[in-house]
Each structure stands twice: as C-alpha cells, then as structure tokens.
C-alpha cells in the first residue's frame, strides 16, 4: 500500500496498548481506580493502607508498572541479597560451627571469621568473630549454597540504603544473626525441604545426647 502504512500500523499497536491499560481495569471492576491509588473511585493521591504485592505473569497486559513502595513485586524464596547467620529459636544456639567453608567458597573473599575458644583454650565449634564486608559481597549466594549446617542464608531485605558506609557496611556477628523462626518465615519451602529437616533432626539429636550426658554427669 501507500507510503505510511507501516507507521499507521505501528500507531495502532500503541493505541491498542494504551486501551488495554484501561480495559483491564474495567474488567477487574475497578473503573478508573488504579492499583497503587487510594480507596476512592478516582483516587490517585492518597496512599493505600496496605502494601500490595503485584503478581505479573504471562497474562499481564496493559499497565505494567509496579508502584513501589506502595506496591511490590513478589519476593521469590531464592532471592539473594545479603547473607545472614541463623540461630535456633528454641535454645538461641548459633548454627555456625566455624568450619570456614563459606569463607572458602566466597568469590570476592568478603567473609572473615575466627573460631571461639573455651576458657581452657580449646577450640569450640562456634564463631568468635564473623564479619561480612557488604561493600565487597557480590550477593552470589555461594556461602549459603555450600554451607553444610544451614547456618548462613541469603536474606531478602533489599531496602538497605543509607547515608554512611564506613561505620555501617561491615556487618559483624551481631548484625548478621537472625532467628530460625524468621528464616522459616522467609524461606518456607527450603525450611520444609527434606535436606534441611534431616539436618535439623541430626542437630537436635546431637543436642539431646549432649543434654542427656550432662544430666547423667550431674546426677553423678
């Protein structure tokens, strides 16, 4: 056809896209009310009361924007941001045994650790110090992937912006610790996986044995 047909067809594509934005709102019964706005029928100014998670998949057409911070994308369980160390809720034990594997697989070598010692000077299977320099960490998740004790995991919190780095960006043991309860909440599938359940079973059995031994000793 004549010159300009290509451009016209192109315009039709954009118009279709534009209209799709609204048809989907209409279909969802929202009229002009958009995601991310307030509760009134036409309301772009007030903030929604709750943060909503927007799921987008192969069906998504029309508006594509996720209005962070009022809306968010779903957090996938495997999302890797920064590593955290886990302590068990029941007894407060830090799971890390200071086996150094995380430091050995860390590609940019951002993990420093040293083993704790008992008052007699014997090494104990606990970390004395543990640091992660998050200005070097590349969020690769190798540490959590190869940790044999499920002690180090990748956190999901990405909202870490701050105004200073020299005092705050090296995380010590205290900064890194989170509870196993928190971990179970953020990583439900992994927490319920066969590997982690068996690992937890092994650890609790060991703890139990140690407890029994101690009890026997105390009973004399």
């Amino acid at each position, binding site marked *: 056809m004549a010159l300009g*047909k*290509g*451009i016209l*067809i*192109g315009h039709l*594509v954009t118009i279709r*896209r534009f209209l799709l934005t609204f048809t989907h709102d209409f279909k969802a019964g929202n009229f002009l009310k958009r995601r991310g706005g307030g509760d009134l029928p036409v309301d772009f100014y007030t903030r929604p009361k709750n943060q909503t998670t927007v799921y*987008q*998949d*192969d069906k*998504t057409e029309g508006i*594509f*924007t*996720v*209005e*962070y*911070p009022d809306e968010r*994308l779903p957090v*996938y369980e*495997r*999302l*890797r*941001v*920064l590593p955290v160390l886990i302590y068990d809720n029941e007894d407060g034990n830090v799971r890390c045994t200071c086996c*150094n*594997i995380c*430091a*050995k*697989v860390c*590609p*940019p*070598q951002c993990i*420093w*650790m*040293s*083993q704790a010692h008992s008052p007699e000077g014997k090494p104990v299977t606990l970390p*004395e110090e543990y*640091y992660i*320099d*998050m*200005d*070097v*960490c*590349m*969020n*690769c998740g*190798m540490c959590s*992937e*190869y940790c044999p004790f499920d002690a180090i995991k*990748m956190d999901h919190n*990405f909202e*870490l*912006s*701050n*105004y*200073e*780095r020299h005092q705050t*960006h*090296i995380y010590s043991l205290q900064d890194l610790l989170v509870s196993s309860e928190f971990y179970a909440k953020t990583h439900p*599938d992994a927490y319920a996986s066969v590997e982690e359940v068996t690992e937890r079973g092994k650890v609790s059995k060991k703890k139990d044995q140690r407890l029994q031994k101690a009890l026997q000793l105390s009973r004399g």
Partner: protein
Amino acid sequence: MSVQSTARPEWTVVIDPVLQKELEQHIFVTSWPKLLEMVDTIYNWGRRSSLWPLGFGLACCAIEMICSACSRFDISRFGAEVFRGSPRQADVMIVSGTVTKTMMPMIARLYDQMPEPKYVISMGACANGGGPFKEGYNVVSGVDKYLPVDVYIPGCPPSPQALLNGLIALQKKIDGESLADAVWYKPEVERDIPVPVLGPDLIDVRFLEITAEKTAQGLLDKSQAAMPKPLIIPAPQPEKPAVEESSAAPAVVSAADRLRAKMSGAIAPAAAALVSEEAKPAAKPAAPAKKIKKAEARPTLVWLGHEKLKTLSDRLNEKFGAGSSTIIDAGLLVPSEKLREVSKFLKTDSSTRYDYLASLQSVHYQDCIEVNYHLDSTSNPGTVIMLRVRLAEAEGQASVPSVTDIWPGADFQEREVFDMMGVKFTNHPNLTRILMWEGYGYYPLRKDFLEPYYEGPTKVFDSRVEKGHGNHFRAEELNPYGTNMKIPQNFTDWDSLSALDDVKGKNLMPGGVQISELDTDQFVVSMGPQHPSTHGVFRMNLRVDGETVVGLKPVMGYMHRNHEKIGERNTYLMNFPFTDRLDYLTSMGNNFGYALAVEQLMGDDTKVPERAEYIRVIMAELTRVASHMWAIGFFLNDIGAFFTPALYAIEERELILDLFEWASGSRMMCNYFRFGGVAFDLPKGWKERCHRFVYDRLDGKIDELDRFLSANEIMLDRCKGVGALTAEQAIAFSTAGPVLRASGVNYDIRRAAPYSIYDRFDFNVVVGKSGDLYDRYYVRLMEMRESVKILKQAIRDLPEGPILPGKKTYQIKVPAGEAYSRVENPKGELGFYVVSDGSPTAYRYHIRSPSFINLTALETMCVGATVADVVGILGSLDIVLGEVDR
C-alpha cells in the same frame, strides 16, 4: 482622659497559653528562621520532586537503573525520569556500577560540571567500596574516594526497587536540608573535585606530594616482595615417544611438587630441575605421589581431530621446511618467523580455508609467552585448530609479526595482548594500549605483576580464616598508599602529569580521508565515554567532514575491571558469579560457556544429566530472547524511536527475569550453572509458568514487535543500506553472532560446533542478506522466533531426574590441560580459554568476548556514514561494555 482601647474585641481575646505556644511554634511566623523554614519546605519539596539524574551508567547496575526508568518501575513517579545527557542540566548523579581508574577522571569532570545543588547516589557494591572487583588493578575502591556521596545503595546489583528505595532516602535527605546552611550558596566552600590524573596509575592530585614521597620509598614493592608469588609453570612440551615411559613417573612427582609449591605459594621448581629429574629415570620408579590428571588434549570440543591435524602438520613441515610445525597438546607450534607464511597458507589454501580467526590470546609461561590463535573455517565449520607461537618471556622482549592484514579481526585482540602481556606485534597498524592507558606502569596479566591489593597467589586468603584471628580489614589498609595504587619506584616524572592530557584517546585520533564535496575543515569529535547512545562507557573518536564521518577510532577500557586477572586467582567455582558480570544482560549464557570450558577439561567426570542439559538450554534460550528484546528496544532508541519500542520489549524481558529470579535467586546475576549441571532444581510451578509464557505469550509479543517496527517507513529509511558489511568483511573482522549472520554467513556455533544438546532441536539458523542495520535488526527478531521454537521443544521434553552428576561439592578437581569453549551467546561467539595446571585455580583464564571483537568492524561500517548513523550502527552491534572491556 482615659484612653479608649481601639482594639477590636476579637483582637484582645485571650488565647489558651498552650494553644498560643503551639501556634507560635508551628503556625505563626515569628522569626527569620521560622520564615526560612517555611520557604525551606517549599524549596525542598520542589527540589526533591524533580531530581534530574545524569543519564550516566557505568556497569551492571546501570542496567537496573535503566530498568527502573522503564515500564515496570517507572522512576517518573518520583519526578526523576528526566535523565539528562548533559551534566549541566542534571542534579543527581547515580554512580551505577564499577568505577574504574580509566573512567574516574571523566566522572570527576562530570561532577564538576553539574550545577549546584548536586547529589550523588552510589549504587551497588562496586560504587560503594569497590565491590567484587575491588582487588583488580583498574578499580577505584569506592567512588567516595573522590566524590561526596549522599546515599549508598548496597547490593550487587541493587534491584530497581532498591534503587527507588535509595531515591526515597535521598528525598528524605533533601527534606532535611535548609537554605540557611546550604553549602552551595557559600562562596568560600569549594565543592569542585580536582580531576585525578592518569599517570603510571590513577593519581589523586590532592595527595600528589605524599604519593611521590611514598613511591620514592618503595614501600609497596618492599611489602609485596615478602608475599608468596603466583605460581608460574613451564609451557607444555611436545610429547615424547612412548618408549620413554619410565621417565614419566619422576616427571609426575615433580608436577605434584609443583602443585604443593603452588599451594604454599612458592615459585615452582624451574624447568631445568624438571629436566634433570627426567635425566635420571628409574631412580624412584614407584613414586607414591598424587598423580596430576591430564585432560584430553584438544583445542575445543568440536575440532579437526588428531589424524587430520597430524596430516596438516606434516604438510606444513613439507611446505615450509622441517620444524615449521610441531604438535603440542593438539596445537600447532609455529616459529614466529614463519607465522605469517603459515597463516597465509592456512587462510588461502583450498583444502583448509581457515578464514575465521575465532580467538587470539596469550599465556605467560615460565620459559616463554605463548600467543595462540584459534582458527575456524566458515566454509567448513567446526574444524577448529590452534596455532601456538612462543616468544621471549622477559618483559617487553616478546615480539611477533602481526597478522592483522591476514585476519583483520586480530587487530584489537593483538592490541589487547600487547596491553596485557607486553608482546609487540611488528607491523601492527596502531599498536597502542587498548584497555589500560598509555603510560600505565605495568603489563598486568604477566604472572610477575602483583596488583596493589595483592594478598596471595590463590584464594582462599589465609587472613580470612585461621590466621586472621577474626580481624577484618579493608584492602586499603594493607596498601601503603591507602588506596588502590601502585607506581614503579623509579617513576620521577611527576611534573609532567596533567589532568588535561587525554592519555586514553591521544594515540587514537582517526586520520580520515580528504573529501572534496565540502570546502570545510575536518574536525575530531570525541563521542563518549559519557554519552547516552554509546551503550555504556564507550568512546569513539570521530573525524567528521561536515556531517560525514571520514574516520573513526574506538577508545575502550573505561570499564576494564580485570576479570581475567581476578579469574586467575579464583578457584574454578568462584569464577561463576564473575562470569555473570561479563555481559550482564546474558548471565546465563556466560555461565554456560564457562561451565563448558571447565567441563571439557574434566572430561567424563562431569557427565551432565539430561534434566540439567534441558534446563541449561531453556535458560540459555530465554536469555537470548531477553537479550534480543533489549537489543531491539535500544537499537530503536538509537535510531530515534525514543523509548516506546524499548518499553514494550523490556516488558517481556522483565517477565523472563522473573523466571530467572524465581529459579536462581537473582534477576541479572543468576550464577545458576555448576560444573556438571545447575545449582538448584527448578522450583515447583516454574515449568508450568514458563510453559505458559513460551507457548501462550512470547510468539504474540514477537509478532507485535514485528508489526510495530518491521514495516515502519522511518525505520526502513534509517536502516536500509546503512552500515553494511559484506560477508567477506564480516568474516575477516571475526564478527560473530547476529552481526555475522546478517551479512549472509551461515555460521552459528549451535550448528557449526554443536555443544550441549543443541543437535537435538529443530531450528533454523537465521541468515540475512545485505548486512545492513535492518538485517541485523531483523536477524535478531527472527532469532527470537527460533529461540521460542527451541524453548517449546525443550520444555516439552524436559525430563525428570537429577540436576548434578554427583554430590554438590565446592572442591573441583580439574585435570591439567587447556580448553577453549565456544557458545553462541546472544551477542555472538563467547569463548572461554582456560589453562589448568591441575590446581584448584585456573592458570590462565581468557574470555573471547563477542562484543569486543565485533567492534573491530565498527570503523569500516561507519566511514562514509553520518554521525546519526554511527549511533545506529553502534546500536546494531549490540555491545555490552562489561564484555567489551571485561
């Protein structure tokens, strides 16, 4: 007379004192500061709601920054969508990515040109403090070494949501500011940054004297002299005839010793020792030492084959005299004086026709520097051979004739070898440093070069575990300069350093040709490294006559983050996340290439399970679709269709990234492949969603893009016949991927040298005709369709089963040998050349990057075009600077 109060009654109403106080505090303007506060509120509101960022991206984080300005995250909701190309119109600089030394002077200049008030957001680990590339010799340990940073966003890379979070943090900071103490209204406060100088290293002129003093003392050299050095091994020698079998055992012992020596960081026993041991065999025949396994000798997976190579070698010896070709580990050792004759023969002889120089790299051995050439033939693909040339080992002594006139694609690769190893290529048209700058003090890939932050020959560093006693430190603290700097002790020429000296571009001024159409002077334009349409920190020196380009020289290295040097210290496993950051749009594809290289060395130890093979192909093809979507979107941007096509294309990319994030844990830096398989199995529901996405959505979206763009008259006008590359040129310049195929060359690694399970799928290799911009665009579009075809088959056939051949382990045992893997990445042939000495660390790790080598053809394509076309031509090459500069 009593004075009657004239005050009206309501004026005299006594207010509750508490209310009065409240009012005075918050409502009434009772003092200057109060007034100022009110003004401040409005002033700050206005400023924070219209932050105009500088359209300026450095590395991987820039992609996330662009995403945050695109359809899904839409930074314009914060009034910050106006990305300005000029610093003079911008008020926030988002330092997104690795700050290299080569780029730092430019960043300082850009910052100085921004008008007050100006803010700096440091995005990502690299900009914050050096990040994973901190140990590299060309990386600045945090942009705050030079610029005052307002907000730090941790993460590698921070997702677009994290960037928006940082933007909100900056808005909060602005809200807290006051006109009364705004530094930018105080004339006595000097906020400009003195531009650092590229001398023997990046030198901060504020500390020039102290730097000179410390250099004269040679503190760093002294401290590094005591450190264990990287191991340096002798080059492989021709195999002895089988008769000498008894001598093999002691040689093995010495190899094990070498390994042990490497572990303890000592220099290996010299080759002479090895020979002397060989001289007295049978002395200890049954050595109990661990035997270093040797990998099968082959240049790459699909190659000529041992017998044919023998025949070829014999023919060469016959033709050019004995000794002109010796087979060493399935490579032909050619004396450097005969290299040109042999090369010409290999290229032109009808029986071989090695017209495609796939890759050129160098290895520093104890006794020589080896430059090796991987050659393939486009008329008979998959017959790869490797040439080796061995040169003097001493620094600056090695010299070899250039082959740029035989294979023009060798141009940049030879310059890279010169830059990194100090090998001189005689008769090279422009042998200058390509990644580092002229005047840099060292040849960084030589094994005897220790970087400023050198801590040990191989990872793991002792200080991290037992010997560190838990004392953490930043690498700066170990360096006497307190920053990533190393200057040769004999450097004294401090007065000659000048920030105005353009050391990167000085030697790359295009000569150009005289054209007589216009009676005007020609002039040189430097386009980049900060330019919105150079796809990163890439720079072109253009010589223009009017609007016509008469000469062009690419200037690169502004993002050289020392991938290879770091990769030679990493264990094999550690390199995976680093490969993600090569071409950060195709991390899965990079993983694939690297995994294949090491799997080639490991041989049958890593038989990839079926399921893992299918997952790998699915991921690689999804990557191709995502990358081509991005390429098409931004190509259209470059030719003037500003952002609408890009926004549409990026939607699909985002949905693919969702799938990646779900399976691997990260949108961009997937780090998903492992040797022999993949890191995790697919999560529950992944396959179904991917199935729906591929079967129900992708085809329609590609059709839409096709309808939207392919017949558009403006697009046709801008693209047809522009930047054309003939098939011969495309092959000669060693271009790869869509660029090569658009010129009509049917060469796709997936078909030419099938890897993984690509031989099982039914797909076509898309080939263009004219090699112009339009064909490159259209080849990409059609390739997406072919990818969808492969995806459909792969998802359909995806079997159940294990994803790794054995137990997951971080201790990778790689036999000694060398391997070159080739994968068809979206940008072209991605190659990983790995030399292993049997230790946990690669001895040499080189990346044949398609983006880098495709640029060789840029000048030819651009000369004669207009400046506006140059932008389009560059866009059609689809370069990613992380891969160009590595």
